């Protein structure tokens, strides 16, 4: 069982990076919208896992995306931040339920899943574009990019997650 989840996560890791760099980084919808779907890795990752490993894996994920897309280390900073904040976000979204052993992402409501995903993406994108543009004079541009690209990321992540979701029993 442990091996099984390990391999599933490994395959997810590789596939999400490939899909991100080969498909979504080249989308350029309206000339500038490139949704970031690799955030789904953090959404799908098992909840009851070692936090240290999780942060290190996310660091590696961000670093690989950065190497491929020539974006310095902006993706790394954003991904590590949401990896660190993930338990707090989950406590906020799922309440006390999330502390129980039996809690699973599938057993929560649609609205909760959506809020969780949306919060991950919004925080990620705000950090990403703040670092990318890095000037307070362009704060409107940061907001505009975070919103437009954030919305497109959320839509695509929802589509992908419903496409590959495991069936509820």
């Amino acid at each position, binding site marked *: 069982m442990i091996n099984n989840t390990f391999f599933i996560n490994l395959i997810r890791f590789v596939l999400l990076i490939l899909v991100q760099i080969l498909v979504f980084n*080249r989308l350029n919808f309206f000339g500038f919208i490139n949704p970031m779907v690799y955030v789904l890795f953090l959404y799908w990752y098992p909840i009851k896992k070692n936090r240290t490993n999780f942060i290190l894996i996310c660091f590696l994920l961000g670093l690989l995306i950065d190497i491929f897309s020539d974006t*310095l280390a902006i993706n790394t900073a954003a991904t590590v931040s949401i990896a*660190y904040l993930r338990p707090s976000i989950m406590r906020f979204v799922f309440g006390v339920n999330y502390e129980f052993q039996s809690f699973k992402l599938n057993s929560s409501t649609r609205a909760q899943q959506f809020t969780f995903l949306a919060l991950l993406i919004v925080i990620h994108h705000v950090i990403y574009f703040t670092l990318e543009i890095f000037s307070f004079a362009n704060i409107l541009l940061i907001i505009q990019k975070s919103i437009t690209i954030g919305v497109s990321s959320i839509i695509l992540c929802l589509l992908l997650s419903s496409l590959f979701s495991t069936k509820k029993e």
Partner: protein
Amino acid sequence: MQQIINFLIRYKIFLLYLFLLLISLIFTFQSHSYHQSRFLNSANYFSGNIYEFFDNTTSYFGLKEENRKLLRENQRLRYQLYNKNTDTIQPLDSLENNYLVVRGRVIKNSYSDQRNYITINKGKTDSVEQDMGVITSKGILGIVENTSNGFSTVQSILNEKSNINAKIKNSNHFGSLIWNTEDYNTVQLVDIPRLVELTIGDTIVTGAMSSIFPENVPIGTIKKFDLDTSRSFYYIDVDLFNDMTNIESVYIIKNLNREEIIELQEETEINDQ
């Protein structure tokens, strides 16, 4: 001591997070200043080969268009060749020439970020080095920034750090070519003095001041011009000849006199002080 260890254990995840965040911020800001990060770029063996593998598959779909482009370029070059008055033959000995040209292919293109980089499939083994100019058959593309054995990254002209010497064709009024990150079809030419007469549609080419590009490589045409805030220089929007979203074949140009020029300039600067 006990307390310090307890503190470390309790906050180990937070400390790990701070440490990793610090690493990524150092990588980011160290290269904000001038060059792209030396470690984090797609010109390495691993990412270069992945991009090349996928580009080999997808490049088939653009072959027809690419062929047409190259044919058009050949036509133009042949026209120039046959109508040349002098019949001197270029010496084949590379020591007598000023420029070397290497051909290459784009395997990864980007134009929607603030700092766009292009990856090409030629590297150190093809004698591509940092600060060589990259052009296409239509106009300039950028400057080589990092190289590995088989691949290089190119700082595109669509990069907020890009700064290239350019001038108005058939005159010697030069300025700097920059990008305001807004539109991937338009770059900006600044520092052209106010007394120059401009017309919309004038051609912009690379200037002679650059030790990277040869003179008179086409860039684009004037789309719109206005005076800048100091009221003494123009701020010109230049419509690019290149379609930056669709680039396949490129030429990498090496100026063989570049080292000499730079040496001379440095010497002059030292003497001035």
